[in-house]
């Protein structure tokens, strides 16, 4: 029972870790570059969830100090994660641009094939 | 700034400057280039010689630049040993430079040879005149790396191979030295030479450092297990460069060892650590193997190179005995061997220059056409064998006496054995060339005549030195060697 209790109170962290592992696994096992990118985003999301969960309080509201708001979440993690999201978006956008170019040059999105093509050129 | 104008520093800086100047003017005028290349060692010689009276009065000239490369600092010093070795280096270098102006006419890439020869001189003078281990190391590397250019001068596949071997071993040696120096610095907090040494005891790290020095200097000096580059690198270089490599640059290795044994560790610590046994063992192997292998060589320059290995063993023996008279022999042999080997390489080079024949077996009867050259060769060879009153005899005599003083009969026998082997590999050459019949007269081109003066004069001059130094004790070489050895054994703690 204590274990369940503990799991429940840490549910956000738990989910974050599970998401992270899913992302990591996908990234390692899938050959498709787009899927790799999606996996990367899942991992990022997991970390964001983790970070936001640090500052979350059950039933808390947005931390804007107007009358009526008594219980609010810690604003710092949220603010940081906003930045994190921006960074993640830029990464993704840039990576997509590169993927487009890669497809143009190699005609495939399969990482193994790309390596094979590149390897042939070297020989 | 005035510090830089002190004469010992100038003896090092001038060749360095000349390197730059030669590099700049060589495309405009080859005459100026050659003149500068000859002038550089002469200037070094003069600047160093100007310290003669000061040093002989017992003063140790010391110039320090602590600002350069803290925490080690840089310093130059002149004492008896550096004076003797420095004068030998610059003097022989001057003669070889004169010789090379004529010899190199037939060679390619002269614009590379002259500046790098001068740069090597700067390195060598720096090694000899350094006042601490770090300065020594710095110039040692400068010398070794610029000498690489001389080794591979011919650019044949053989030369490149030999050069690469030389380069790798040089780097290994440099790193071993580097390790040893920082270990010394770690132990003692200083790297400046002090009479009697500054290492207190032969601790584990100190012994490790000693082996580092042994490897570093041993590679340069061609001590036997580390000599592998030498018989390949010396013969492939142009003859004047061979003379410099064999006659002079090997000496920097043993010079460094002398400094390490007497001015860094101190002979007492070396003896206490049992390190002299290592030196003696190596010396015995070096003497024996160097001489023995030389017999089997037919290529004259290879034979001379192996002979150098054996001769380095003598000097190492003189150091390892840790005995004053033996050290006199060793220091004197630095001078004697430099002169003898330079004469041998230059005259052998002259023959190759004239006839293109490198093999001893092809030299039959050449002495009739190039009599002066071959007589000089003979004088140097006899001196190598140890015939009195030539210089080679003096060093062997002192070494043998030193061995007796130390109670090591075995080394006397070894010296005699080595002399015998010297005889075996030099005498046939002399016999063949001077007295042999020309068995195939057609092969010798009819134009084989005596050498041009610029090549002949240095050879003859050195041959005369070999003959007369010992006959005129007032020349002071032996005296200087004695004083140097005494100073090294002086313990001031």
């Amino acid at each position, binding site marked *: 029972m204590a274990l369940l209790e503990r799991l429940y109170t840490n549910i956000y962290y738990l989910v974050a870790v599970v998401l992270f592992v899913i992302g990591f696994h996908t990234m390692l096992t899938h050959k498709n570059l787009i899927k790799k990118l999606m996996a*990367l985003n899942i991992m990022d999301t997991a970390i964001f969830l983790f970070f936001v969960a*640090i500052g979350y309080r059950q039933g808390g509201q947005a931390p804007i100090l107007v009358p009526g708001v008594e219980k609010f979440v810690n604003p710092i993690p949220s603010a940081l994660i906003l930045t994190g999201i921006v*960074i993640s978006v830029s990464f993704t956008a840039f990576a997509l641009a*590169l993927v487009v170019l890669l497809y143009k*040059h190699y005609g495939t999105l399969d990482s193994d094939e790309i390596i094979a093509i590149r390897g042939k050129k070297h020989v | 700034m005035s510090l830089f104008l002190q004469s010992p520093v100038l003896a090092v800086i001038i060749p360095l400057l000349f390197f730059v100047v030669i590099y700049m003017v060589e495309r405009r005028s080859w005459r100026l280039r050659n003149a500068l290349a000859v002038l550089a060692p002469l200037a070094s010689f003069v600047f160093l010689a100007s310290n003669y009276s000061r040093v002989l009065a017992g003063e140790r000239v010391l110039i320090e630049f602590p600002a350069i490369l803290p925490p080690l600092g840089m310093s130059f010093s002149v004492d008896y040993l550096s004076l003797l070795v420095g004068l030998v280096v610059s003097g022989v270098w001057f003669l070889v430079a004169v010789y090379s102006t004529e010899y190199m006419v037939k060679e390619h890439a002269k614009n590379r040879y002259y500046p790098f020869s001068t740069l090597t001189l700067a390195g060598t003078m720096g090694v000899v005149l350094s006042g601490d281990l770090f300065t020594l190391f710095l110039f040692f590397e400068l010398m070794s790396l610029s000498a690489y250019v001389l080794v591979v001068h011919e650019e044949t596949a053989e030369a490149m191979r030999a050069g690469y071997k030389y380069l*790798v071993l040089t780097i290994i040696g440099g790193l071993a030295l580097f390790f040893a120096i920082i270990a010394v610095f770690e132990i003692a907090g200083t790297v400046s030479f002090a009479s009697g040494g500054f290492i207190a005891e032969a601790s584990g790290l100190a012994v490790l450092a000693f082996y580092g020095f042994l490897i570093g200097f041993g590679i340069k000096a061609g001590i036997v297990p580390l000599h592998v580059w030498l018989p390949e690198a010396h013969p492939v270089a142009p003859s004047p460069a061979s003379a410099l490599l064999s006659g002079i640059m090997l000496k920097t290795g043993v010079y460094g060892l002398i400094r390490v044994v007497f001015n860094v560790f101190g002979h007492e610590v070396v003896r206490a650590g049992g390190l002299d046994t290592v030196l003696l063992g190596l010396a015995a192997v070096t003497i024996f193997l160097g001489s023995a292998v030389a017999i089997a060589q037919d290529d004259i320059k290879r034979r001379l190179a192996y002979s150098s290995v054996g001769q380095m063993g003598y000097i190492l023996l003189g150091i390892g005995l840790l005995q004053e008279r033996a050290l006199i022999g060793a220091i004197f042999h630095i001078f004697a061997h430099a002169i003898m080997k330079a004469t041998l390489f230059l005259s052998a080079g002259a023959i190759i220059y004239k006839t293109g024949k490198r093999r001893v077996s092809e030299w039959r009867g050449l002495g009739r056409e190039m009599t002066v050259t071959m007589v000089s060769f003979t004088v140097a060879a006899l001196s190598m064998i140890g015939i009195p009153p030539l210089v080679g005899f003096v060093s062997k005599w002192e070494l043998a006496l030193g061995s007796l003083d130390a109670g090591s009969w075995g080394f006397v026998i070894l010296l005699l054995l080595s002399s015998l082997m010297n005889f075996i590999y030099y005498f046939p050459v002399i016999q063949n060339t001077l007295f042999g019949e020309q068995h195939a007269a057609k092969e010798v081109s009819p134009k084989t005549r005596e050498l041009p003066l610029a090549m002949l004069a240095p050879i003859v001059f050195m041959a005369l030195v070999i003959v007369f130094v010992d006959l005129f004790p007032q020349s002071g070489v032996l005296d200087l060697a004695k004083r140097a050895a005494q100073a090294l054994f002086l313990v001031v703690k």
Partner: protein
Amino acid sequence: MFSISHAPILMVVTLLMTAFVVPLVRKNMRLAKGLFLGAGLIVVALAVLITLEVLQSGTMIYAVGEWSAPHGIELVVDAFAAYASLVVSVISFIIYWFIVFAPREVNYEAGYYALILLLSAAMHGIVMAGDIFNLFVFVEISSLAAVAIIAVKGTKESIEASFRYLMLSALGSGGLLFSIALLFMITGHLNMGYMRVALATTAGQYPLNLLTALAFMVIGLGVKSALFPLHIWLPDAHANAPTGSSALLSGLVVKVYVIAFMRIAYMLLGMDLFYILPLRQILLVLAALAIIAGSVFAIVQDNIKRLLAFSTVAQVGYIFLGFSLLTARAVEGAIWHILIHAIMKTLLFLAVGVVIQQSGYKKISQVHGLARRMPLTFACITLGALSMVGIPGTAGFISKLYLALGALDAGLVIFAVLILISSLLSAIYYFPLIITAYFGHDASPDVKEPSLAVRLPLVILSLAILFYGLMPSMLLPLVRQTALLITR
């Protein structure tokens, strides 16, 4: 009005603003180039001012927006930050110069300049940040810009390399962010000074969190700084980038992440904690592996730029080694090596880039006798290589000297020997290039030296190598102070 205290933020802002303006004036390339160089020069001047100020009156703390710590964002300019931004600004200005005057290698030049300025701004931000999240943001900006300046070349190899770099870099960022989250959980702060104070009491309570955080930190910054087993992206990325980018990436960017790591170690963890945790041993082992493996991989390379890239892996190992040995002289060696390797590797990459541009030869086996056609360039390469090997009289000797002395101070003779072995290995991989170039026989007759303006940076860097090889006293006080910060 503008007192010296604003200089730190002005450095970042100058570069950022120029980065945004340059694409707007892309129709007028002369103006764009002028702005590009001007910004670089201003930053060099500011860095010199900051350095003098820090040497005179100690650490500068700049609270952005008048919000002071723990809530606000601070720039903490201590001796280390001043030193690092001096190195970054000077070396990157030399590279700017080269990029502007060398033959162009990219299509969209103004964009390229903008990216490089952005990268420089981020690097200055990283070395000065006093707030770990701010540091993270700058790390991200620099990572993106670093990837972009590889991809701008537009060849398929460069795009493939930059994509791989991007993915690994993103993974590293994830790790870094995760570790920041964990550290924030333990300490409740983001300002590194406050975090250290909080850690003093809470580190014992949450050892697992702390260890996990540090593991992710090592992985995150390790990927970005190419610490040995995480270096796999580096050779391709650095070898396929345009010349200026290669120099910038190998000479500075990789090292800035090491600096970030060092700053986190002493500002956030405190060296006591660093010593207690197994971090030091792990880093020592990884650094040793990096030194050996980087050198061994470099030996088998024929492509010159790949060779240089692998050599960077080994050299980063030196910096980590010196830092984690933690004796005063070893740390000084590591700090020297940050500067000296920046000089050497920039010189080598620029010079090799010049060779490739002028002759089209990319491999060691192709450069036969090229030194006769390009004597100055190859003289510079030779000097750089000698310095890499650590020949005394060149700058590379200084850092090796200090590192080896530091290893002996720490009683770890094995690491001193390791440094020597690695020097030997670098000799083995650098000398064939030089020997081939000087002694080969079929020189291509139509290859020429580049213009004077392109040769100038090479000459300046070569002179710097000689100067620091013999007279390092000029920067010595700064290096000493920096080392004191870390080892106190």
